[in-house]
């Protein structure tokens, strides 16, 4: 069977003057449709770099990345933009809604860039808002909503284009723990309904909500397996963090 995401020997190397930084140091990873994967690791371990490459916002220094069978690792900016538009839905830590646009217009954006007609755009955006339970807020500006509501709008925006993969980068980072849990529960619900979710977090207690955990350290995968496996939450060389981050 063809994998949805297939990373093979991915390197991302930054040249900082004399120094070279291996942000990703030979990563191979596959994700199949319907999975819920958390990519977890300490700050500086390479999570954001991995997320940028999976999200087609960046290209690897070497290695190949196939998304739904298509090699996207050597695409130019406009081709990548098209892949992001059709295949990927982003959820960011800072919600990243456009403040001057209404909730509905924000949700319509991916459809706007896909060239969907105004009527269908509205219909599909309203359906996405309904999925997150915010259709009555469609005329509001983002600033008139609470943090949790704004994050749900950004989830609706990610869903609006019916992407193959939902990429969530620290989606609970800016929320209090209760709304954070609600958002996580929502991602679980989406996954239960068949969406593929890739969650990026530094927080073990959040990572364990996924079905599968991929742990990064210094640009390498040091664990890839079931989230319920106790090994999944072990931070090998950062003893002082073990107590607070490991949530059994």
């Amino acid at each position, binding site marked *: 069977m063809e994998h949805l995401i297939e990373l093979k020997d991915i390197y991302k190397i930054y040249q900082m003057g004399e120094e070279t930084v291996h942000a990703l140091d030979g990563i191979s990873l596959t994700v199949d449709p319907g999975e819920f994967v958390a990519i977890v690791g300490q700050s500086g371990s390479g999570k954001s770099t991995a997320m940028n490459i999976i999200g087609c916002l960046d290209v690897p220094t070497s290695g190949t990345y196939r998304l739904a069978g298509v090699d996207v690792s050597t695409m130019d900016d406009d081709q990548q933009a098209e892949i992001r*538009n059709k295949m990927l839905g982003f959820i960011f830590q800072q919600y990243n809604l456009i403040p*001057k646009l209404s909730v509905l217009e924000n949700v319509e954006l991916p459809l*706007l*860039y896909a*060239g969907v007609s105004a009527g269908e755009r509205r219909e599909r955006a309203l359906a996405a808002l309904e999925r997150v339970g915010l259709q009555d807020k469609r005329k509001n500006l983002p600033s008139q909503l609470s943090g949790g509501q704004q994050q749900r709008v950004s989830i609706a925006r990610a869903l609006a284009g019916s992407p193959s993969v939902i990429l969530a980068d620290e989606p609970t980072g800016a929320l209090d723990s209760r709304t954070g849990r609600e958002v996580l529960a929502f991602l679980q619900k989406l996954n239960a309904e068949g969406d593929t979710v890739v969650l990026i977090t530094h927080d073990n207690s959040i990572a364990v909500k996924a079905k599968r955990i991929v742990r990064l350290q210094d640009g390498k995968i040091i664990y890839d397996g079931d989230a319920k496996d106790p090994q999944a939450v072990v931070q090998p060389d950062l003893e002082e963090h073990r107590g607070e981050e490991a949530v059994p």
Partner: protein
Amino acid sequence: MNVTQSFRMALNSLLTSKMRALLTMLGIIIGVAAVIIIISLGNGLQNYLNAQFEQMGVNIIQVQIMGRGTGNRTVETEDMYQLAEKYPQYLSGVSPYVSVQAEVRSGGTSYDRTSIYGVSDIYYNRERNQTMRGEALSKGRFLSYIDVERYQNVCVIGSYLDQAVFQGKGLDQTLTIGGIPYTVIGVLEQKADCTEGSGDDVIFLPHGCAQRLNNRISNGSGAISIMGTSITVYLFASTGQDTSSAAKGVIERLLDQTYQSSDSYFVVTAAEMMDTMNSMLEVLMTILVVIAAISLLVGGIGIMNIMLVSVTERTREIGIRKSLGAKGRDIRSQFIIEAGTTSAVGGVIGIVLGVMLANAATVIVGAVMGGSDGFTATPSLGGILVSFGVSVGVGVLFGYLPANKAAKLNPIDALRYD
């Protein structure tokens, strides 16, 4: 695709920060208003002057004789009459046109801004009931052949003198011109605004009398000399506007044969004068409009400046849009539309301001020239459309650089920006 949204967002951001929007658009507003007002004033002036010309008669050919040339002969009044008789197909008449500098007095009051001309009876066309310069009679009659032949001390006065000197009962009254009493035999209809020094403050008398007055004045008072210098200005009337250049041709031939030097005379038709005036006005207007257009350019630079700031401020928005699938060209067109909208709004404000100022100018010029004198600053539709088009063009042109900068932003950096 996202044109309406870009357009609406641009209008929104103009409305939410009005002060900044005003400063951004100021150059465009001033430039467009200046262009409109210059075009309006130019059109108004042109219409006004053309109307004046029409009133004075478009069939007139003015002949000025400056010297004797090398021919050692002169063209006399009689030669001019013969010429007009010889070419009736081109010339419908000729009259000397002697300007007189003399004091006009009546009952102890002196009128020193009055224009006095010596003409012949031909100056008045009996069939069309108007003079060569378009004046019509309201009372009495014009100078007759006998009046001119016999140097009769009679005159025709303009409506201003009739009102100011004789309270509207000037017919058969007397006024003195250069100390000599003249009887009023006719009053002209009002053609200007009936004020002192205007086209209504005028006297026509037989050209022989006019020359005598001029000689008397140049010889010193008392000595009356009939032996005068030749008449130097004649007015011909061509049979129509289309025959005026042929008429000019036959006049020039006569003058050239006599004086054998084109430096000794000057013949100009009203149509030529009108053309010359119009083309001079057009050159002047073009220069002024180009100068005003420079401020449009400055306005464009203002827009570019603010757009560059706006791109920096909205780096994160650009990153978000790109992450959602916006291509470089989508971002570029968004910012270009925004720049175009900003300058278009500035252009519309400039047009409104310009038209308002043009209307104000009509009132002010009217007041300065004393009463409504037919001057109307007229904004032309073409001028409005062109200046609107140019202002949008300037916005798009100067919006391109910032828009391109936005389009080239790296989405990762842009998303991280705050």
